[in-house]
């Protein structure tokens, strides 16, 4: 395993940071939460952020916290699908395909929510899960898994996730279409 400074990784995969923060902003606006500050990208830690008001609405909290994970994952599959066949299966040299693979992987590797996002969710989910709130029940294993994966970023779990989604997603999609 080799170490590459965070700002360099963020710079190489900046579209993913921007999409992640746009996801937070989108869900804040959707649930009418006040947004105090937004940084779509910066050379620092964190590479981007959205500061918004706290909410007691768990649905809003769920989507604001985990929304970017689903958005980034979906966009990763879409962009990588446009590039998967020429790059991986057909071995065709098409610059546009390589551009889309970079874009898709960049987006995919920034899918994980931050530990701050997960902490908010983790604080409120157990009580609501006991009361039978389905989103709270779903969010518990999700948050636990993503928390672990987030810690595993030091061993490139985020890049691994992007690659897995960017390859396995389109592969499953195209194999299903070819049936």
């Amino acid at each position, binding site marked *: 395993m080799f170490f590459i400074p965070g700002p360099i990784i963020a710079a190489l995969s900046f*579209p993913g940071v*921007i999409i992640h923060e*746009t996801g937070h*902003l989108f869900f*804040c*606006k959707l649930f009418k939460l*006040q*947004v*105090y*500050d*937004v940084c*779509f990208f910066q050379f620092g830690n964190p590479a981007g952020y959205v500061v918004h*008001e706290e909410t007691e609405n768990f649905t809003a909290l769920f989507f604001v916290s985990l929304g970017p994970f689903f958005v980034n994952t979906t966009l990763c599959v*879409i*962009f990588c699908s*446009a*590039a998967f*066949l*020429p790059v991986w*299966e*057909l*071995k*065709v040299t*098409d610059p*546009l*395909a390589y*551009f*889309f693979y970079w*874009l898709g992987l960049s987006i995919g590797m920034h899918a994980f929510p931050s530990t701050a996002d997960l902490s908010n969710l983790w604080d409120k989910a157990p009580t609501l899960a006991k009361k039978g709130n389905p989103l709270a029940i779903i969010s518990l294993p999700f948050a636990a898994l993503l928390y672990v994966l987030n810690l595993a970023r030091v061993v490139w779990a985020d890049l691994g996730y992007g690659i897995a989604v960017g390859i396995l997603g389109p592969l499953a999609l*195209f*194999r299903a*279409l*070819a*049936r």
Partner: protein
Amino acid sequence: MRQATCHSCGLTTTIRSFYSFQGKTYCEPCVWKASKEAAEKGQPSEYTSLTDNSICARCGAYSGDSKDHAVIGKLPLCATCAPQVVSWPYPQWLKASLAVVLALLLIALSNGRKYFKAGKSLYIGERLVDEKQYAKALPYLEETLKIAPRSDKAVFLAAKAALKIGDVATADKAIQGHNGGYFEDANDSDYLEVKALWDRAIGAADKANKATELAKQGGHDVEAAKLMHDAASAYPEAEGLSEAATQLDAGAAFERKDYDAFLELEQKQWKQYPESGTAAAVASAFACKYAITGNAEFRKQAEDMLKQAEERAKADPKQMENFREYEERIRYRLQSREIIDKPEYDRRFRQGQAAGK
């Protein structure tokens, strides 16, 4: 900026430096102390920071001593910040970038249609190869190779499918289309599988070529047939080899003057491949039987088969040319009741032409 005074120590400074604890105002050191004492007595110890409603919580703009900023949610916000906080706009550059990326995605999807088509053919071909439906798989894989001749996967699948149905030429074309037959990983299992198939097919083709050469020389049909049978059993996927072996068997039967076996083998070929050449060969065998027995029924059957051979050759000038050459010799056999092979016929009647079987 508004000022406040600490309930405990009397410090007076800006409100934002103070905290509210149990309804009273404290500076930071005093609120820690008060909170700690309350906690030790088992009383609530939470405290909150005081906000100065004349200071915008976001940009710090001062509204003046006489009026406050509007409190939105829990925070005072100036007239500039309030609308932004309530509905934070997407920046123009973000919208423009999104539009550009969507446009590029549309271009990629449009440009990628040929890849989707090739990819779909590849997956269908792969599935059919897995199901051992090689003949069905090959057209799909050839379609993929038109777009992706350097795809290892497509090349290996196409070569395998082609070799499994005895189509060495198509396998060769697929392999040569990939960097002139160069593959980076010589230990790849798919590569090794195709190489084993290829080596077997080429070994059989060598034997088949030798058999054909011997047959052309004339008088070596028995040896040629044996070689061709070896080739056919080494590479049974190539039905043509087994067909050629049967043809050489027929030639060998002719050579040893076993005209019953000659007729039987040619009829078998004709049944399996009802073409001009096989029809003419049956006519040739009937002509032999007529020459030996003088039975007019054999002559009639020979004439009938010649008609069928001519009928089937009409569409193809090359076949017609071959038929005319063969017909001439068969008719000589029927008229003279003398059985001679092609080299002898050529020697007698076609001086100057190359000798052959």
